[in-house]
């Protein structure tokens, strides 16, 4: 399954089961909604399962490799987030794991945006010697020394569909697929129920003799 095929399936359902080149809702319109619905459904599923486990299904995790860069103004090393991810979850669990590429067993600790100040002077601020990071928009700053610039970081993000091409095969369970389709259809059905402007404005203008 790919994002495109999901969007195509939604388009077929919305347009009555037949591919119509002049239908008001096209596959391209639905691609964005599919990405959004994926995140919504996965988040809802996660919250539903919270009593049982906080773990996230491995099929929903996407791994990226990025290089560390240098921010000379702040004297910090950072990496650019390769994609959006499942946000608004406690403890930023959407950023599932961060570590050096060759040292996946030594994960980094997300200390949050005020972490450096909050931890300053505390006995346990070293966090067992683990590297620390915090996310600022599409960048993640780290506590690593400047000399770490150029090192490769392995990032695991939850539901990071935004950064994927539309024809990338996705490993989404069938029940989640069904929920995603329902979510997209719900948005577009509401749109279809609204009064539609079916008048051809060009034709109307021609009949009245007004200048175009």
């Amino acid at each position: 399954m790919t994002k495109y095929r999901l969007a195509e399936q939604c388009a077929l359902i919305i347009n009555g089961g037949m591919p119509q080149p002049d239908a008001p809702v096209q596959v391209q319109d639905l691609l964005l909604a599919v990405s959004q619905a994926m995140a919504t459904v996965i988040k809802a599923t996660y919250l539903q399962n919270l009593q049982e486990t906080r773990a996230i299904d491995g099929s929903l995790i996407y791994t990226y490799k990025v290089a560390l860069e240098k921010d000379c103004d702040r004297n910090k090393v950072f990496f650019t987030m390769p994609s959006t991810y499942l946000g608004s979850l406690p403890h930023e669990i959407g950023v599932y794991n961060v570590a050096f590429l060759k040292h996946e067993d030594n994960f980094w600790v997300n200390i949050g945006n005020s972490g450096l100040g909050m931890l300053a002077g505390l006995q346990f601020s070293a966090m067992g010697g683990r590297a620390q990071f915090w996310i600022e928009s599409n960048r993640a700053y780290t506590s690593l020394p400047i000399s770490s610039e150029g090192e490769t970081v392995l990032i695991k993000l939850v539901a990071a569909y935004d950064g994927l091409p539309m024809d990338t095969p996705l490993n989404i369970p069938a029940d989640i697929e069904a929920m995603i389709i329902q979510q997209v259809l719900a948005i577009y059905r509401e749109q279809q129920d609204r009064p539609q402007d079916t008048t051809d404005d060009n034709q109307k203008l021609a009949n009245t003799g007004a200048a175009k």
Partner: protein
Amino acid sequence: MTHTLDTAVREYLLQSGDDSPARYQSAYTAGFAAFRELGFDVSGVPQVHILELSDTDSALLPDGYIRWTRVGALIGGNKIVDLGINNNLLPPGTVVNNCGNNTIATQTSAVGGNNAFWPYFYGGGSYDSPADNWRNGEFMGRLFGAGGGTNANGYFKVFPENGTIQFENPRSREIIMECLVDAAADASGNFVIHPFLIEPIKAGAHWNMIKFNKYVSGSEKASAEGLWLKAKRHAKSQFLAPNIDTFYQFIRAANSPSPKM
């Protein structure tokens, strides 16, 4: 295998259903609070330190010092002799000597004589020195008045507020201090923990994570607190339990034959 606070916290996270380090910071903070409390209540870590004496016979206390259990001078390379307490000593740096240096004059009566020949008598500051018992170039052979409750090995006083210890005429320059320290004062951040403390730290981490959370129900908090207190008591009894060697020594001593009259 060495157990650390890090391993205990990861064990707790895995047991509570996490397989991501997203909650690691919260759990580590909570685990550390438990570890610190256990250190004070249950496991206060005994350590042995060799103190380095300065020119003024003072030394810095070990990091995380809580209280001393024994302070002695090392003599002959393998024997510790206890020092006495002298509450009249001043903390280092409170007296300015004639040279303008911050120091304390602790040498009281060790004047004259032969240090190599009279090492023992030079040890205690309150003793009469051999010079006091020298008549017409001849040692009289007796140190009348020696003793009198003084300690030939020297004296000390601890100043926890300054993080220093002051000595008076210590028997040797190698001072051994056995003391309880706060294990949480380890600045490296990789706190090594005793195996008995793994379960209490997990229970304590859980309790500390929810105790200030107003959205957690009272019953869940009560349950977590009970678990924590039980684990703490259990660890304490584990620490206090005598081991098999202790029992063995006891039996052997009890069966030693009494001397025949």
